[in-house]
């Protein structure tokens, strides 16, 4: 049985490993993701030797809805995994793509996501070199889940880890806070909310981080992308892993007015909203201003700002100096999680 994209919907056949499945993979994915490593469709892709330490990461994407202003599940799946590699200072080399599809999914939706994955991989310059597709009966999954894994190489001398945090280091946020999380939540019909100025910030950050690491060798101590759990959770993780205290100035944090307004309306603290196109950088204080200037030369870093500093103090504690001049603790997101935002 042949497969055409105008064949309306995904059936269980498409995940059977038989002819229909092969056709689906060829037409939908191979044609779009075309690259020499993927083309043979062997059991594994074989990558050329790399000169450096290997970074390896994986993430699954279950965002609901699949499409939202500024992006879609495919874009997230590529950018998110590329960013996970970038956060260790690795240069991303290749991605894998695992898709779990619900029986009955419109082929048109699948094609749109495949287009988006291909475009994102192309833009990032990171090929998808291996993949897998499974179809589960209707109701056993919600439309589409994606897993991507990624490998990258870390150049000699690059050591990015919260263990390198030092008292006095500057904490930088590379983009405005909360755009992705609030956009996805607002896109959910059941909240009865429409925010026209909201847009996900999803973006691949590896070029920007690589530029900073190259220009300021040794000065970048730690990187973290504040995805699920938001900036608050990422800062707490950094403080805990680094065994030091962080002091954050709320007034310095870039936050777009529509994000703030929507957060107030939905009763959600922007510190807990997911971000998909920003990173927290901990750098040597002396270089902080120059790092911010470098970040701002990149489109993803246009709003970069120093938002706080590392202190010797209670390990793992993050203190927020609030915009109105008060003070409180920042804690990781707990309880009431915001489900399926990435």
């Amino acid at each position, binding site marked *: 049985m042949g497969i055409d994209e105008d064949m309306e919907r995904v059936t269980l056949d498409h995940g059977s490993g038989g002819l229909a499945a092969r056709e689906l993979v060829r037409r939908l994915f191979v044609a779009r993701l075309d690259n020499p490593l993927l083309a043979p469709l062997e059991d594994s892709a074989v990558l050329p030797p790399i000169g450096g330490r290997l970074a390896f990461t994986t993430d699954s994407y279950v965002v609901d809805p699949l499409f939202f202003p500024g992006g879609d599940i495919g874009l997230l799946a590529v950018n998110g995994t590329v960013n996970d590699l970038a956060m260790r200072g690795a240069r991303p080399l290749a991605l894998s793509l695992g898709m779990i599809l619900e029986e009955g999914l419109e082929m048109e939706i699948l094609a749109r996501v495949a287009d988006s994955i291909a475009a994102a991989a192309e833009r990032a310059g990171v090929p998808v070199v291996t993949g897998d597709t499974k179809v589960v009966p209707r109701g056993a999954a919600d439309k589409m889940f994606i897993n991507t894994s990624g490998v990258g190489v870390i150049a000699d001398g690059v050591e990015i880890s919260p263990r390198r945090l030092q008292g006095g280091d500057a904490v930088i946020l590379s983009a405005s806070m909360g755009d992705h999380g609030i956009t996805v939540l607002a896109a959910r019909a059941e909240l*009865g909310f429409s925010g026209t100025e909201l847009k996900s910030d999803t973006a691949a950050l590896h070029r920007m981080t690589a530029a900073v690491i190259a220009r300021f060798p040794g000065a970048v101590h730690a990187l973290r992308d504040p995805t699920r759990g938001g900036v608050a959770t990422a800062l707490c993780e950094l403080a805990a892993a680094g065994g030091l205290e962080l002091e954050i100035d709320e007034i310095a944090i870039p936050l777009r007015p529509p994000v703030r307004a929507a957060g107030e309306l939905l009763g959600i603290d922007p510190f807990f909203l997911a971000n998909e196109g920003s990173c927290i950088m901990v750098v040597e204080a002396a270089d902080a201003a120059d790092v911010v200037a470098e970040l701002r030369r990149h489109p993803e870093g246009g709003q970069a700002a120093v938002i706080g500093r590392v202190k010797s103090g209670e390990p793992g504690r993050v203190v927020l*100096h*609030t*915009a*109105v001049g*008060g003070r*409180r603790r920042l804690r990781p997101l707990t309880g009431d999680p915001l489900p399926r935002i990435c």
Partner: protein
Amino acid sequence: MKPADVYRDPERVRRLAARLAATVHRPLRFMEVCGTHTVNLFRFGLRAMLPPELEVVSGPGCPVCVTAAVDIDTCLAAAAHPEVEFATFGDLVRVPGSCGTLADLRARGARVTVVHSPAAAVALARAEPGRLVVFAGIGFETTAPLTAAAIVQAAALALDNFCVLSFHKRMPPIIDRVLGAGHRLDGLLCPGHVAAIAGRRAFAPLAEVYGLPGVIGGFEPADIMLALVRLAELAGRGAAAVENGYPRAVAENGNPAAQALTDRVFIPADAPWRGFGTVPGSGLVPREEFARFDARRRLDLTPRKMGSTGMEPAAAAVSEPAGCRCGDVVAGRCRPPDCGHFGRRCTSTAPVGPCMVSAEGSCAAWFRYGNDGE
């Protein structure tokens, strides 16, 4: 500067903090009775700006927190009926009754749906004519009109598969209870949301009966600080008066249309409170005219025990979570860190009591934002 920003202007807030520090000359203890005040005092970092001699304690202002365990048991009994779709605000799902939570019951197959408004529950009933949608009505004067409107709408639509399990509560009777029982308070930060509906005059007995000062406060940082300054000034002068510190939202008589809607649908009744026992006239139940929208009159709500597949017929004794001091917390008799479970067995990931479950609960606010001993 946008209108909202005026009330978040750091300079303005700082000036008010300085005025507060200059006004408080002796130890003062104020109570707030509103979950939003509880949270915003922490969230904006205002607690760190209060003079050390001023203590602000939380009273019974968090609707989920003051809902008694016996009422949670009633929710479980309602949700266990096979034809019922139990519609509730999210917080309630995780509050433990005597033998588990609505979430536990949902895991055993009961239909429990989180809605964001009473109107959404009516919509659910219209979409699912084969099920009886039971909406858990919870909240003070602020939310009661919304539930009343939902009942009126359901009546107009002649919807037969919608009813309300009302735990709505009234603020004045519980303030009477707090103040009538030998308190150590120097003033009350009155809730702006409730006052917007009930009016300033609803809080007048504070001064007239109990000789205490009260100030109705809004919710932005400058609103809260201003209300505390005026409260400290009144307390300093020994003046018994209730002032409106939130005139942009609160009128002397409140919102008569909303009051009328509540009155049309509900009638006051005795109600159990966590931490206070039964308080006469403090609850709201549907009037006779709306009896068919009253879950208590439509369903057998005898408390039962939770078994592996749902609620079992054996009646259970009502019990609170062991060691949980929520009853004392909502009455301002202790602070969250005074509870032995706080931050240990009880965290916002694994809450033991309702004050940690509710985002507006005092324990949750202390846990999320508090600086340990602060």
